[in-house]
């Protein structure tokens, strides 16, 4: 019998703690598939966040450090500077990267820190029960915006890729989603490219992944996936936001 698909060896045989319909499980699997296919596990160091991704160390068969909330990019900087041969990536949520860790992420991007950031944007603080995140859409109801997010009170949803694109140090920024098979395949390509960017020493790479959170969105799984396509991408358009890598510029690369 021909094997058409199997669990990546680097993804442990553990039960995910993620809720049904959550995108984290897919993203975790994609990361370990990429690690395996690019044979990075012997050099890889993952910096896990505070948030729904904080238990990555239970799932990844690679070195993992759990950092303080929001400090992933700073910790990854320390690791990468001390051991430049390591392949270092932080895994961060929207609260982690776009609220409490804005300064760390922004300045790592601006320094052109040769690290990879996997940024999971599901528009809410998931682990703490669905509070408003910096990426929560206007009018979106969360436990701390019971009448919907109002820009008068809570400002506007933050587009991290577009902000980081203004910084000369960022090399590769792409926004993808994991709400349907075609999108998942694109997400995997983007993740692989972000690691290649690090291997080539091109500087800061970030992949923003729109990820469903049915539990805190108070939606069904299918409805969540549709909502990403119909509503979320209007605020967070998919695609390559910035690519100054050698491989990105076909003409310059030979």
């Amino acid at each position, binding site marked *: 019998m021909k094997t058409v698909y199997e669990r990546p060896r680097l993804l442990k045989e553990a039960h995910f703690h993620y809720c049904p319909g959550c995108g984290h499980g897919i993203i975790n699997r994609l990361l370990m598939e990429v690690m395996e296919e690019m044979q990075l*596990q*012997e050099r890889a*160091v993952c*910096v896990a966040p505070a948030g729904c991704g904080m238990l990555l160390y239970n799932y990844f*068969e690679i070195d993992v450090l759990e950092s303080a909330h929001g*400090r992933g990019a700073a910790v990854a900087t*320390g690791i990468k500077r001390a051991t430049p041969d390591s392949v270092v990536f932080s895994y961060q949520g929207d609260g982690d990267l776009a609220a409490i860790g804005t*300064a*760390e992420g922004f300045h790592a991007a601006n320094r052109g820190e040769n690290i990879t950031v996997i940024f999971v944007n599901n528009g809410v603080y998931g682990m703490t029960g669905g509070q408003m995140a910096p990426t929560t859409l206007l009018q979106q109801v969360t436990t701390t915006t019971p009448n919907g997010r109002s820009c008068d009170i809570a400002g506007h949803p933050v587009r991290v890729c577009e902000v980081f694109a203004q910084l000369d140090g960022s090399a590769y920024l792409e926004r993808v989603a994991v709400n349907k098979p075609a999108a998942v395949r694109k997400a995997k390509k983007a993740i692989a490219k972000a690691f290649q960017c690090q291997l080539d020493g091109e500087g800061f790479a970030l992949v923003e992944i729109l990820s469903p959170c049915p539990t805190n969105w108070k939606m069904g799984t299918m409805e969540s996936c549709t909502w990403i396509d119909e509503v979320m991408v209007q605020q967070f358009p998919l695609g390559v936001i910035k690519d100054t890598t050698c491989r990105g510029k076909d003409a310059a690369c030979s």
Partner: protein
Amino acid sequence: MKQLMSGNYALGEAAILSGCTCYFGYPITPQNELTEYMAKRMCEVGGVFLQSESEVAAINMVLGAAVAGARAMTSSSGPGISLKQEGISYLAADELPAVVVNMVRGGPGMGNISPAQSDYFQATRGGGHGDYKNVVLAPGSVQELTTVVPLAFDLADKYRNPVIILGDGMLGQMMEPIDFDGLVRPPDYEKDYTLTGAQGRAARKVHSLIFDTKLQEEHNWKLQRKFQLMEQNECRFETYLAEDAEMIVVAYGIGARIAKGAIKRLREEGLKVGMLRPITLWPFPAEALREMAKTVNDFFVFEMSAGQMVEDVKLALGGTARIHFYGRPGGVVPMPVELYRIISRHYYQAQADGKGKPA
């Protein structure tokens, strides 16, 4: 050969000679010269220097470098050290080595940039959240940095725990003759916890998140056993004219330098005053004080704060001796003659009161 060097520069050089390869810092007075020195020297020796976007980022970069196996250091002063407490707590929880320098300035709040000793509680009680301790070293002169700095890196590696060097604005800024001839680079330790990629070994995890409360308690007791070992083995202090003393001054760092000047003068007048200078503020030399209290009835605590170490002296002596206190908070540095007058007054009063124990 002796050279004239400021404390901040000397600390930087001592760190490099001790094998420090990574430094992360953020500007704040009165420790800027240390950051600037590291910027220049790390470039020369091929180490890592990075000026971070904040103190919070700097300590987290230190954590990253430490988990990668490097000898890493950061430095700051009061307000910046408050920001670093998050990272220091994580370092202690993750059992990672690091050296953190605090050139203390007058506080609270923004305070000023004058020398002070008001961060004693913050340093010796852990400072951040959770049950943990830092080793706290208090150098008393620029030359002493050549023993204190390598010791800091050694203890950090030996116990896998953050070590605080608690100086002050004066130590950082003043220039003194120093030679590095006696500086011994601490040995390299076997590190079976570093995250450098799972090559030829199982993947490693470093985390302080432990959902199971029983396991968390077990981890905390493990840390506590380590702290007990430090208390047993790493307490350091110095005495000065203590043999025949009837009153012992307890002071540390620059405070002890000032007290020494006062004691010399008191001795010239025949007053039997000596000193105990803790070099480690944690672990605190409580046992040494208790030993002294068998023959000495009066202990005079001097600090450039409103009174913090005096609580440790009280805890150590537990009512077995009379404790006097004099403090100058807010960045005021008293002259030795001021301290001489105060100690002298307390000394004669104590003699008049006789050997009576405090109520």
